[in-house]
């Protein structure tokens, strides 16, 4: 079966250099000052290839003002925006900016009706990775436009506006780096954690492997997030003809539905 196109987060310039020119890959550049959870971010003048820019910060009013400064002068190689804050969408609509718009809205796009409402404002929507594959299939079947599917990578499962690692370092007079790992003291759940000036992100310990999503219908892009992975691993993942489940077995939340009423445990 034919694979869909990949939207690849540009985790470092070397990866971009190596994969530039591949027909099936579009780059997504985390924009400096507008993102959390990425070790490498880009100023607009550092983006030399065609691609989207990523804005996943929730913006305060100062952030919105900064965004307004850049949005009217985007270089021609920026084909679109992937963003989380609905204030960005409002600015784009009010200024009538004609650019491809993809709504990320992390953790929220969990049903086809909400997604179809947003699709009346934007070109595509990233389906929440927090839902089961059967729920995703129903969304894809009922969506009015092709959607973006989170397909591979560690998943951003918590975003705090606090600088949690800095606070820890200050309190205990430590020098823990701004990218590190956590392990729950009792249940031994493990996570990865990353901080920048704008907040702290906790990621799953293992990368979610949804490579089986690469051939799903009604998909605009399959999103791959290389954070914490080496360039060699990413290139192997992109070029592989199998789903690599032996190397990357983690299904995240795709294979079981979450519960939300405690009595459901008894059913």
């Amino acid at each position, binding site marked *: 079966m034919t694979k869909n196109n990949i939207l690849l987060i540009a985790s470092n310039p070397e990866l971009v250099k190596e994969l530039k020119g591949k027909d099936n890959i579009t780059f997504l550049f985390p924009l400096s000052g507008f993102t959390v959870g990425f070790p490498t971010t880009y100023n607009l003048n550092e983006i030399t290839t065609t691609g989207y820019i990523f804005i996943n910060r929730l913006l305060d009013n100062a952030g*919105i003002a900064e965004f307004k400064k850049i949005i009217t002068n985007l270089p021609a190689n920026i084909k679109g925006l992937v963003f989380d804050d609905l*204030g960005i969408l409002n600015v784009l609509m009010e200024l009538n900016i004609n650019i491809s718009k993809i709504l990320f809205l992390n953790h*929220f796009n*969990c*049903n086809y009706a909400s997604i179809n409402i947003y699709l009346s404002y934007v070109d595509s929507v990233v389906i929440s990775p927090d839902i089961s594959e059967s729920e995703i299939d129903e969304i894809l079947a009922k969506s009015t436009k092709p959607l973006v599917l989170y397909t591979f990578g560690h998943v951003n499962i*918590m975003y705090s506006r606090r600088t949690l690692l800095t606070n*820890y370092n200050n309190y205990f007079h*430590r020098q823990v780096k701004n990218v590190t790992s956590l392990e729950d003291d009792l249940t031994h759940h493990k996570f990865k954690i990353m901080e920048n000036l704008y907040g702290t992100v906790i990621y799953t310990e293992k990368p979610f492997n949804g490579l089986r999503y690469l051939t799903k219908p009604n998909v605009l892009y399959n999103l791959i997030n290389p954070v914490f992975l080496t360039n060699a691993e990413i290139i192997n993942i992109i070029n592989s003809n199998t789903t690599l489940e032996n190397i990357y077995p983690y299904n995240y*939340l795709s294979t079981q539905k979450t519960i939300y009423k405690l009595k459901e445990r008894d059913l």
Partner: protein
Amino acid sequence: MIELLAPAGSLERLKIAYLYGADAAYVGGYNYGLRANAINFSFDELKEGVEFAHRLGKKLYVTVNIVLHNAELEGLKQYLEELASIKVDAIIVSDIVVIDCIKKNNIPLEIHISTQSSILNYETARFYQKLGAKRIVLAREASREDIKIIKDKTNLDIECFISGAMCTSLSGKCVLSNVATNRDSNRGGCAQICRWTFKIANENDLFSMTPKDLNMSRFLEDMVNIGVNSFKIEGRMRSIYYIATLVYEYRHLLDKIINHTIKESDILYSNDIINRCANRESTAQFYDKFPTEKEQYFLGREEVSNQDFLGVVLDYQDHMLKIEERNYFKIGDVVEFFGPHLEPITYTINKMYDEDGNTIKVARHPQMVVYLPFDTSLPPNTMMRLKIFDKNDYL
């Protein structure tokens, strides 16, 4: 419009909130709410709650703020129509499909955007305003400056939390619970993983991300001045004593602010009462600064529980207060009564009687009925607590 907004996890707590001075209360209905563990309201309870509120000229809001999955779409319209049929004053929403359903079907429900949407700027507020939102519940991370700008640029009703627990995460942006326990945090199942402790890298000191509670008592007047309309207390799972105490204190503070009679001593006294009731340290968090390590816990949850809540007045007859006991008290204890429209009254227990009229020295069984001699009538639902703070000490 200035509104004191209280939480309620049951009909009893809802009525206490109103009686103690809340202008409005918010509750979870029988579906689509974010506190699956709270004792959410049945249709009949909601109906009774609305009627009770409206008789007092007050308002009731219902949370419909989960992030819906496909399966939950069915039944949404009917649920919203049921809420409208009993004249709920507004619903608190975060998923756009709920707003769309109301608008498409002309369901007469006022829309408030939940703090789950983590709104921090006026452009996001405007987006929701265009969709028909009347009110925005701002992210707890909003600074004073951001709140003011959002109000000035949108003139929407602005609702801000003033008290209670904080998420570590921006609201709606956390699924730690889903991953660690399979309980869906954005559908009411949050297991509060952010309050666990963690080992970090190779360090010996445990990592914690637990924030201290929010307490805005010092900044209420400023919040009024910059245009905040609704002052929201967190805690739908809290007790009647907690709700009575916080509503009572914040009501007094807001009234004095509105009447321009507020003094520093009022704030300091209320602050101590609130903090003791909440059991956790509290701070203004993001309002006046960017939080640092001082706004978090690191060495475990430093919660101090107490047994200050001694009883509830059930009745007054023949110069006797009929009290339902909640915590141990005894002859010689100095206690305090506080209640709706009642300044705290200090009282030393010199005599007390059981239900059969026998003299007793201690009341040791929760919910036992105790009679205390008292000169004047106190209304039912007046609270009796151990006297810890004396307002005169603050003057």
